[in-house]
């Protein structure tokens, strides 16, 4: 695993906002996992002079930027590590939703404490950085560099009670060679004039579903199992998945957006949008109901915990 330093850490505005909201709405300490990717963003060295032959070209090509795109947190702390700070790979695997999202680090939030890593946070980050089964390749890099999850984001609040809500945070990269935390600057990516530069490293969060796609060889070759039941059911399943993604946007109906029929097609489009909005609304209702259920379960758990602590 390479020990290259990160140039900076980028996080999108909405992600940071929802992270802070998650932290401030919880009644206790929170921790969780950070997902995202690391890209190599070489800065262009445009100059009129000929570059001297002795200047190393590799220095321009290793400007690593880690981008945090989303996070996972459960309602309790220490879900993937124990009290000594050792990370349990199995519970970590269970928490990660799918293999497409990469684990790049973790975060911890604790109210009214100093803004520096604690004993356990150090052990957890160190243990996490040694978990090579979670390491991932750096995108857009000339050489293949593998990065294990080693980002740590710390959130605290100031010690004295404030009338204004204040959240302090700091991001660190853990350096295995020196066993230390190196603070890194955080870039908050918001849509605006400065957003252009990040467009290149932007990555969508809902990728195309993974469909088994085999390259057909020469059209002359006979596929032996083309007629078998397995094959046809697999093709039908893939087709269904594709249809679900493309619902409402069938090629046939899209072709009507152009040409002479376009003016008559607005009603069809409005219909499409209405259907989409209805879907969103029912989705939002579902989320609301399930959130209420989760909250109920959490307060029940909290009551039980208080009872165990002798606090009631």
């Amino acid at each position, binding site marked *: 695993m390479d020990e290259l330093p990160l140039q900076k850490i980028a996080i999108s505005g909405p992600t940071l906002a929802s992270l802070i909201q998650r932290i401030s709405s919880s009644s206790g300490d929170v921790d969780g996992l950070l997902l995202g990717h690391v890209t190599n963003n070489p800065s262009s060295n445009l100059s009129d002079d000929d570059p001297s032959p002795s200047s190393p070209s590799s220095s321009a090509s290793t400007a690593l930027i880690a981008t945090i795109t989303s996070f996972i947190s459960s309602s309790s702390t220490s879900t993937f590590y124990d009290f000594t700070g050792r990370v349990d790979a199995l519970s970590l695997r269970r928490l990660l939703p799918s293999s497409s999202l990469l684990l790049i680090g973790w975060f911890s939030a604790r109210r009214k404490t100093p803004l520096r890593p604690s004993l356990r946070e150090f052990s957890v980050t160190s243990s996490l950085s040694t978990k090579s089964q979670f390491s991932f390749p750096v995108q857009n890099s000339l050489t293949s560099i593998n990065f294990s999850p080693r980002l740590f984001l710390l959130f605290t609040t100031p010690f004295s009670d404030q009338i204004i809500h204040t959240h302090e945070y700091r991001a660190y990269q853990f350096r295995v060679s020196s066993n230390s935390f190196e603070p890194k600057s955080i870039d908050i990516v918001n849509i605006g004039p400065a957003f252009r530069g990040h467009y290149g490293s932007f990555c969508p969060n809902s990728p195309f579903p993974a469909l088994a796609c085999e390259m057909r060889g020469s059209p002359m070759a006979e596929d032996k199992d083309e007629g078998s039941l397995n094959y046809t059911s697999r093709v039908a399943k893939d087709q269904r998945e594709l249809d679900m993604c493309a619902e409402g946007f069938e090629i046939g109906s899209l072709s009507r957006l152009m040409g002479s029929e376009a003016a008559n097609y607005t009603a069809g489009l409005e219909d499409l949008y209405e259907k989409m909005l209805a879907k969103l609304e029912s989705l939002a209702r579902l989320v609301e109901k399930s959130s209420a259920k989760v909250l109920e379960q959490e307060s029940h758990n909290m009551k039980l915990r208080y009872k165990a602590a*002798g*606090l009631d």
Partner: protein
Amino acid sequence: MAADTVPPLIAAQLNYLLTHSPLSIKVDQMWSGGKNHNFLDRFTLLIPFCLDYIRWDVIYNAQYPLAAPDIIFGPDDENFHPFHVAGEGEGDAKSPKNSLSDWNNKDPSRLLSLIHELREHYMSYQRKRVGEVDDDRLKFEVSTIISREGIEMCMNSGVEKSEEVKFAVPLMDLDINKMVLGCPWRHQQKIHLQVIFPVGRKYLSVPPAPRLKLVSSSELKALFSIEDVKLPPWLDGMCMAGYLPNLEETLEEQVVEAVSFIDVRRRFIEALAPLFGRPVEADPIFCRKATFLAASGVFTFLVHFFLPTQFPKQQPALMLQSSQHFSTQGIPIKSSQMADYPWSPRWELSQMAERVFEFLADESLIFKKYCNESQLQQH
């Protein structure tokens, strides 16, 4: 709003730590980490180390009562990683046990063992830092002194960001607590010598002398005042191994003498009894204070004797307190402390008592007048 309570399991552990630790650990402040500020589950501990305190924040979670606490160390100790095992790979099923493994929150002694273990690690961490200092004189000093039992050392940053190394050297093998009959001290009293060496600048031919200071707890003042001790001078080219034996010898003599003075004070108080009657109040262990009830005609008053550690070389301070005159707040009127009446340390104790008695006989009349005048002024 309900009063802030400490969750019982956390309170049990903290109380156990404060009452059972041989170190005098203090709690600086307690606060709540929850949103609703109801349970105090975080606190700052002041842990004595190297004649100073280290501040560590202990973070519990009131909502996870079975969870072990987390510790945040001081801002200068970023490289202090006590439980970290270097080179821990993927097959880390067997990492060494420490106080945090198998944590049981219901066991009140766990916090104490955790703090003590961390303090031991901190001591070795500081020792390692001192060992890395690039100064030949310091390396020599450390090598000669390191085998001394109970020594502590740490890195300090002095004025103008210069580095210093501080040593806390416990002096004398004496068990002072045992030497005092009926000693009330909870902790073992020890006198330490604080030695601070500046980290050497290579261009100086003669390394500068260290700063020396004697340190003891304030409880020892009842027996012996370290301010009275004159430290022998540090000569050029001296080292700690050569300086300490001389100092320890003189200090031991002075401590033994101070213990013998307890008896002298006791006998003086006993010598006062035939003249003043039995004391109303007296300190039986160190014999530093005694109070007697006296009367001059109908004027009844209390006499307070304050006996210094250097008695009889230094005379006692006397203070009179009226039992019949009170200030507007209801406090009895007292005289100032008098310590310049006729005195000679060469007198016999009984003679000292007589001379004090004579002095007070005259002084009480003056005091009575003073009390009467104060009362008149109030009306």
